[in-house]
């Protein structure tokens, strides 16, 4: 058997391609590992910090105290400007102290509310829709931070810029940006202390709730499944899949609202389907913080899509909702 020069060249080119692709995969999976480390750090670490959240022309300072004791999470968020509201969240209870209305709201839920586990965490296919790259190491708050950019590959989703602490992967600063680079929202820590232990006293409200009105509610269980139950969005951006569907009672709705959750592994869009008794309300787009909501009426249903995605995505999703009978329900034009 003899090898011609051409054969050798072919083999070399092939080998080089293989090597290059392996290398690029390695770089991408490395970047994705950063994302996973960040999520893990946010959930599992003990920390106490102050951060500034800004969106458009507004900004607000908040304090966050987060404790994890063998999987039992307690988190306290305090508004340091204005309202003085505090939210304290545990695995089974959310308590909201609202000094401005002298009231406390408490909601308890089963410990095994495993809704979030249904959302896959940064699955490997993510790179098909986002270019995830690790940038330079910079200094933030006197610490080395790895810059991570999650750039959307199309106009149907937003991107993220994250400055992760090189040692702990905690996000010292993060930005949500549109495909053309406009920053939509930013979170930046002014100080962040990672602790071995967080004392109970740091998780107690500073609000003196004496004389406040207490309102309690208990959620027992909700109907949750991963089947679409007849409803389907047909015009989905690449990679978006149905994750969860559930029925839930809502204020102002005489019948439970059907809630479909679609995600590409990073961005999530909720579609709400509600039977309406009243006349049609037309359709329209609204901005909600850094998210968009689009709604339309059709054939006795009010359909609304909400998500931190560009307007075109929620519009397309509402516009292409169908029932299994096959006919398009909505003409969201």
């Amino acid at each position, binding site marked *: 058997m003899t090898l011609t020069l051409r054969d050798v060249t072919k083999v070399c080119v092939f080998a080089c391609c293989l090597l290059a692709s392996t290398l690029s995969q390695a770089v991408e999976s490395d970047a994705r590992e950063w994302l996973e480390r960040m999520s893990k750090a946010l959930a599992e670490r003990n920390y106490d910090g102050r951060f500034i959240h800004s*969106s458009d022309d507004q900004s607000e300072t908040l304090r966050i105290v987060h404790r994890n004791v063998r999987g039992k999470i307690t988190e306290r968020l305090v508004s340091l*400007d*204005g309202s003085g509201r505090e939210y304290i969240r545990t695995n089974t209870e959310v308590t909201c102290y609202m000094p401005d209305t002298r009231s406390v709201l408490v909601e308890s839920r089963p410990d095994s509310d495993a809704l979030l586990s249904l959302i896959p965490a940064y699955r490997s296919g993510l790179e098909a829709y986002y270019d995830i790259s690790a940038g330079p190491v910079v200094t933030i708050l006197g610490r080395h931070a790895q810059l991570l950019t999650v750039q959307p590959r199309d106009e149907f989703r937003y991107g993220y810029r994250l400055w992760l602490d090189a040692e702990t992967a905690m996000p010292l600063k993060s930005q949500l940006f549109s495909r053309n680079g406009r920053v939509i929202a930013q979170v930046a820590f002014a100080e962040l202390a990672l602790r071995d232990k967080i004392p109970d006293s740091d998780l107690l409200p500073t609000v003196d709730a004496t004389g406040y009105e207490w*309102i309690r509610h208990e959620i027992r269980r*909700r109907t949750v499944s991963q089947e679409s139950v007849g409803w389907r969005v047909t015009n989905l951006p690449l990679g978006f899949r149905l994750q969860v569907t559930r029925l839930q009672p809502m204020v102002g709705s005489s019948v439970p609202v059907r809630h479909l959750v679609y995600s590409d592994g990073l961005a999530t869009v909720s579609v709400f389907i509600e039977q309406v008794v*009243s006349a049609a309300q*037309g359709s329209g787009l*609204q901005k909600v913080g850094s998210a968009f909501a689009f709604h339309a009426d059709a054939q006795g249903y009010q359909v609304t899509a909400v998500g931190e995605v560009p307007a075109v995505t929620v519009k397309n999703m509402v516009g292409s909702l169908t029932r299994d009978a096959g006919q398009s329900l909505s003409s969201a034009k």
Partner: protein
Amino acid sequence: MTESMLPNEALQSQLSAFVDGELPSLETELLARRLAREPELQRAMGRYLLLGEALRAPIRGGVSRSFSAKIAAAIEQADTQANGKEPQLVEPTARKRSMLQAAPWLKSAAGIAVAASVALVAVLVVRAPQQATGTALAQQAAKSSAAAQLAANAATGESYVVPAVANVPSAPIPAARLTNYVVAHSEFTSPLGQRNMLMGLLSGDQTTTDTKSAEAKSAADADTHAADKVAHNPAGQ
């Protein structure tokens, strides 16, 4: 602290089951009859439903200026309707009664809940210190205050109904409903998005902006879809 919201534990659990959509229809009917008789219970119910949505997730935005304006408008509309024409969601006709036994009560209970929710939000707006600056805001606060009072009165009435924003093409999503949606949605966002929403949690001044600016932002963001027509609200809220 006062925890005198609900008369007793059995009733509390009944209300809770009702809110979760788990109360058997016979019990629902009995509860509905009591609700119709007892204004106290109506108030409790309204708050109960409100709470479920208010705390559905640990993430909840504050109240923006345009949001409060919308609420004030909704309350005004509700008030007009309550004083003027027949409310929309009243007792069913005798003909339909057998079929709709539970549903109309659900509707009216939901109506009460929306009223209570609207009142609370209005109160939030009025009392939040950072909101009460500037003339326009002061005016709005006064309006909200009056509206809150109206809503509070209405919530105790027997036939209070929050009307749908009907006959307005391209109307924005009713504020209370949108808030519910956003709160329900936030349970499912990824740690990245969740974090971002979490950060917005206690912001006192961020929920909705008007449709026109949403459209403008959307157009600015869209590379290829700027030509898409987005219906906007003629009321220009």
